């Protein structure tokens, strides 16, 4: 019994360690600037001051829009293209299938540090610096998603595909209309991972976007907090961090189980 109490105590302390900083961040962003330095639980009063300051200093609304567009198109792209490739690898016979499979495995182990700068140069030469395309194209397909879809399609009985072919379905319709309803968990997993990775990506936007009106949220918040514009105003910085964290946290609130499963499966794959 004492052992159980000890374990619960440790687990509660641990969860406070993970939750309290976020609580502090939200409360501090709503506290008067002068109190943030000594704040532990509740300020003397709440105000939106830090938020109004932030909205007047940086175009955070535009950045939110840019991040939404980028993450949404990237996610749709990853699901569409990776499922097509995964289907071909799982259910079709063609020369070079093995080779493509090994190339995909190989790209998964290739560190991004090798392609980072050359990819920037490609963007410069294609004239794509400061465009949405630069934010989206490099992430439109990924090896992990292809392997997930390949695995999902391999579990589908061939009879289902044959029946659809006899009915005269094209392969594209087979993938998206006949098979997609059968692999919803995989679509959700790939969707959550793509959206979250795109939403949180910051190094690549820092490299390819210079025009403020095209910046994504993490990039905008980063440049704001390292640059001079926050003028050491803690509350404003924290408000920006809250606005950046909120959409993913809300999504996490609704789809918590899927988030955990998706991330765990991506860990186990590698």
């Amino acid at each position, binding site marked *: 019994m004492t052992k159980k109490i000890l374990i619960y105590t440790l687990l509660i302390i641990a969860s406070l360690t993970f939750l309290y900083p976020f609580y502090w961040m939200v409360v501090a962003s709503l506290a008067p600037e002068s109190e943030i330095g000594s704040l532990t639980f509740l300020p003397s009063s709440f105000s939106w001051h830090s938020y109004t300051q932030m909205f007047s200093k940086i175009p955070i609304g535009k950045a939110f829009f840019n991040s939404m567009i980028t993450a949404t198109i990237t996610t749709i792209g990853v699901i569409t293209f990776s499922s097509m490739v995964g289907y071909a690898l799982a259910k079709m016979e063609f020369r070079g299938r093995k080779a493509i499979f090994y190339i995909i495995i190989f790209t998964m182990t290739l*560190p991004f540090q090798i392609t980072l700068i*050359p990819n920037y140069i490609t963007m410069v030469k294609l004239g794509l610096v400061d465009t949405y395309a630069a934010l989206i194209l490099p992430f439109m397909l990924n090896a992990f998603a292809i392997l997930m879809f390949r695995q999902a399609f391999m579990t589908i009985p061939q009879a289902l595909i044959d029946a659809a072919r006899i009915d005269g379905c094209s392969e594209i319709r087979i993938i998206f209309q006949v098979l997609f309803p059968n692999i919803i968990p995989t679509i959700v997993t790939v969707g959550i991972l793509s959206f979250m990775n795109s939403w949180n990506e910051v190094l690549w936007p820092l490299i390819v976007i210079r025009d403020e009106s095209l910046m994504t949220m993490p990039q905008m918040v980063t440049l704001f907090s390292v640059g001079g514009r926050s003028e050491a105003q803690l509350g404003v910085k924290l408000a920006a961090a809250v606005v950046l964290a909120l959409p993913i946290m809300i999504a996490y609130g609704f789809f918590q189980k899927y988030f955990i499963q998706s991330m765990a499966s991506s860990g186990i794959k590698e």
Partner: protein
Amino acid sequence: MKKKWLPYLLVSPYIIHFIVFVAFPVLFSLVLTFHEWNIISPMKFKGFSNYIKMFNDRMFWKSITNTFMFLIIHIPLQIVVSLALAEFLNQNIKLKGFFRAAFFLPVIVSGVVVTILWQQLFGFDSGLFNRMLVSVGLSKVGWLTDPNIAMGSIAIMATWKNVGLYVILFLVGLQTVPTHYYEAASIEGASHWQKFRKITLPMINPTIFMVVILSTIGGFSLFIEPYIMTGGGPLSSTMSSVLYIYKQAFQYFHMGYSVTLGFFFAMLILGVVVIQKKYIEQGDD
């Protein structure tokens, strides 16, 4: 066979993507390592001068040492904390879902948010940690201002951010251990610690190595944390290799040199991961 071209059509987006964003950049970077270039003016062939410069570049080697310093603190801490929490959660606990969700929250949030938040916690005068130290009568610590401590502080923060993910991976690992092993050990009169040492640890070895490899790759990617918190300082003690490569390219516009560093660094990462994997395979026998 009808429509022989169809599978090729389906895989063509991947082929194009692979050529443009993987194959070409890798080959092109190999060419670039022998050139000097700032993108605007024509490339200049420089032979091995980039490589010679790299081997004499003390800042680059310092960034690699810094990265290894980070890993030496981060990896053991990550394993001990996540394994302990997973072991607790695996004990028939109520509210398991709540605890798991709480631990996992930092994993899904952007590194930018976590860094801004911890920058305040680490603050010298009004940061939460120093206020706690002062309140129990200890002296303040220069979490981000002391060159001997700053990288350790970042390693602690990175551990906090990722623990939730590794708790889940360890939980999956722990559930693969057959319960009758423990029952048999209990009959023999083994203590909890003995069971953990003799049964649990050997059984979840594969998970431990997976965590080592994932944290290693994560550690080698360290960028946004020092970029926001310290800019690589104090005294370059938190200059990570990715940050240094970024600075070479976008502060000094040494594209050829920056690509050389990236190329070498990627080979180093591959080397470390291959050695770790070899070690795992030997450990499995």
